[in-house]
């Protein structure tokens, strides 16, 4: 197999790991942030504790703990030796780390949506469930996107940690090729360039998502407008 194929496969592995961790991590972050904002105090406290622990541990420790620790825990519980694949363990560990940080971004974003937005929906007889998904979540998204995008870039590079538990990712591939060819500069350099390329593409996509999420704040739709009677109220301008 040519080195190009090997590196392409390793890149796909890195991207697959990062994207699946992102999806799982975002879902967990949403659950964590809502639990922390919940009126049920024990639930909020328990979630805050979990998040504090996750944020307080080194990433590599979480990865090791999930990979080696879960196998051990399952052995203790079931008396059987069940092996978890490094990919699955890596995805769980990375999504946990991502969700711990992202939940704080989301929590702030939820709080930044004015109360009046929900109130207007409630006053029109819109159900709470519908209000959350149609009124609150889209506005939260706008506030959270810059922070979530930042954490995505961190997550992308944290995938290199799972090379240590044997996931055949970009870093592991570079290390193996560097060792077998005695050309570490070339191969680590190539891995670095691939990480950089993914980052640049990500940044470009994030920029587009940001401007889309801000499109309602542009005044391009008001070109036909007559003299403005009054400036936008502060509540609406920041909403």
């Amino acid at each position, binding site marked *: 197999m040519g080195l190009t194929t090997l590196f392409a496969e390793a890149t796909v592995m890195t991207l697959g790991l990062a994207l699946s961790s992102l999806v799982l991590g975002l879902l967990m972050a949403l659950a964590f942030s809502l639990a922390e904002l919940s009126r049920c105090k024990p639930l909020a406290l328990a979630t805050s504790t979990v998040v504090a622990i996750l944020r307080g541990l080194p990433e590599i420790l979480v990865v090791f703990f999930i990979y080696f620790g879960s196998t051990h825990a399952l052995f203790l519980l079931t008396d059987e030796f069940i092996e978890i694949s490094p990919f699955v363990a890596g995805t769980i560990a990375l999504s946990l780390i991502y969700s711990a940080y992202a939940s704080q971004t989301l929590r702030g974003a939820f709080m930044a949506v004015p109360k009046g937005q929900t*109130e207007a929906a409630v006053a029109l007889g819109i159900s709470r469930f519908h209000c959350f998904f149609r009124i609150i979540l889209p506005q939260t998204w706008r506030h959270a996107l810059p922070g979530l995008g930042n954490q995505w870039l961190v997550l992308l590079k944290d995938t290199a940690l799972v090379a240590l538990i044997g996931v055949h990712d970009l870093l592991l591939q570079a290390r193996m090729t560097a060792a077998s060819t005695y050309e570490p500069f070339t191969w680590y350099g190539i891995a670095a360039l691939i990480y950089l390329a993914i980052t640049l593409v990500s940044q470009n996509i994030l920029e587009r998502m940001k401007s889309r999420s801000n499109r309602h704040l542009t005044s391009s739709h008001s070109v036909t407008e007559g003299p403005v*009677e*009054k400036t936008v109220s502060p509540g609406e301008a920041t909403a």
Partner: protein
Amino acid sequence: MGIAVQSLSKSFGGHQVLRDISFSISKGETTVLLGSSGAGKSTLLRMLNLLESPDQGSLHIADMAFSFPQKKSPSSNASTKACQLRRKVGMVFQQYHLWPHMTVLENLMEAPVQQGMSKAEARDKAMGLLERMGLPDKVNAWPSSLSGGQQQRVAIARALMLSPEVLLFDEPTAALDPAITNQVVEIINELQASGITMVVVTHEVDFARKIASRVVYLENGEIVEQGTAERFTAPQTGAFKRYLQH
């Protein structure tokens, strides 16, 4: 019967904001709740839509009856009833609270479509209302591109989408300049001609005079004076007389 309120009371913490409030409003009337800030008039208005729940008393509005404190029925039952009420009782907020991520048309269509109106029907109705509010060219505009007065009219149109029997206004002119206030007066008078029952909270006497068919004057959570619009020229209590002279 439009609205009947019997001995409503409400406290926040230890502070009693409303004390033994009773009044009734017949169908099609425009009632102004007048008073200085802190008199409890906004809280009273929000109770008519159950955005606040009273501690004691009873409320009849739009052919539905509520009494407080509510019995320990399953809470989903109570909230379903509140939801039904809110579809008959519209509300326009001081800060409009339009949803900024939706266009004017989407703002108008959201509630009726969720409640089962077809999209085509909702669109036609929205177009008609925007026409009536003098904003037919703003259908696809974002709320942030509109002036305060225009946002207010969109908010009124949004409330009218559900064809409410009662429309509540919380300080509709507090954020508007005098010229735009007159537009709101015209809209309210036009709505009154169409037979809708309205309750308007304000602290502006001039605005109140222009729209009221009834007035309720509150001070420190109590009704000091209530009656027809003639009370503006012939107040019965010293307190209301002083307030009118401000």
